[in-house]
């Protein structure tokens, strides 16, 4: 089974049925898989804070939302995470491509990578880092944990996890 299929299978098994995405090269496969699943309403967002608003609404409407985005989005969404998702105590699994780690070809991505975990830590967001393929075995438990505690939870997935950049 491909890692994209495994990730989306875990989403579906946990009742995740509303997913908003802002693309990243590394997430292309998982976004395709989300789009292909009938169980999931896929709504691409133009910006990640907009996506978090959609997820907040979907949650209040009775869905189980998730967002898929790049780690650069942490810089975009601090206010939304704090004043919407956390303040109103809503669950939000965030599957994040962790750009700027080992094997990164674009120097500018490193500038945000060095702040990513510090920001998540400062925001008291539970954070999991997938580096080896087998780390994804915990995704099912992470999703259960997220909907148990009603918090945003970050799942950082780096280039090594995705098998590099196809170079």
């Amino acid at each position, binding site marked *: 089974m491909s890692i994209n299929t495994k990730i989306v299978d875990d989403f579906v098994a946990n009742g995740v049925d509303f997913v908003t995405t802002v693309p990243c090269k590394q997430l292309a496969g998982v976004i395709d898989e989300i789009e292909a699943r009938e169980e999931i309403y896929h709504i691409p967002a133009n910006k990640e804070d*907009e996506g978090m*608003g959609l997820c907040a609404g*979907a949650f*209040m*409407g009775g869905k189980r939302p998730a967002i898929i985005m790049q780690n650069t989005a942490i810089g975009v969404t601090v206010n939304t995470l704090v004043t919407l998702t956390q*303040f109103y105590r809503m669950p939000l699994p965030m599957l994040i491509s962790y750009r700027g780690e080992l094997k990164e070809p674009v120097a500018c991505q490193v500038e945000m990578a060095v702040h990513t975990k510090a920001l998540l830590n400062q925001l008291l967001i539970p954070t999991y880092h997938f580096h080896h393929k087998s780390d994804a075995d915990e995704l099912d438990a992470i999703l259960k944990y997220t909907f148990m505690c009603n918090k945003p939870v970050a799942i950082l997935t780096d280039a090594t996890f995705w098998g590099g950049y196809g170079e």
Partner: protein
Amino acid sequence: MIRSEVLRDIAPILRDQLVICNIGLPSQELHMIDDQPTNFYMLGTMGLSSSIGLGVALAQSKKVISIDGDGSVLTNFGTLPTIANNVADNFILLIIDNGSYGSTGDQPTYAGKKTSLTAVAKACGCENVVECKAEDTGKVLQAALDSNKMTIIVCKCESGNIKLPVITKDPVVIRDRFMTAVQS
């Protein structure tokens, strides 16, 4: 008419609907005029009223009205293409366009100058966009509800604010009673 007068005018229509209300004075005004468990008050996060409302509308079948402002739509312009391309016929976006950032002291917005939010919404692909005078908002809103079509209403009103208290309800209480109302 200023925004608080528009809200007072349409409160009997809003009463029976799920309402997502914009941050700041609009929420404080609606809370004072006619607090309902079907109202979700935004206490922060400028710009996301339309996104939250669309999310609620796509997730379930009851009608949802997002009350937004011109300044807030300007800050989250990306919302209009998303709305246009994810049609929810139980969703109404009511933009109360007073041409100013009301909650921060009535600084002018570009919507009060050259930029037409009505034209932008149409250009983004929204199919039912109605611009109206403040006095006609109730009539237009009721027609939108009756049409069972996703509608964007741009209500042109005067800028101006009334003095009123902040909302002290706990956010989790606001969210929980709203979710209970959604499910009832």
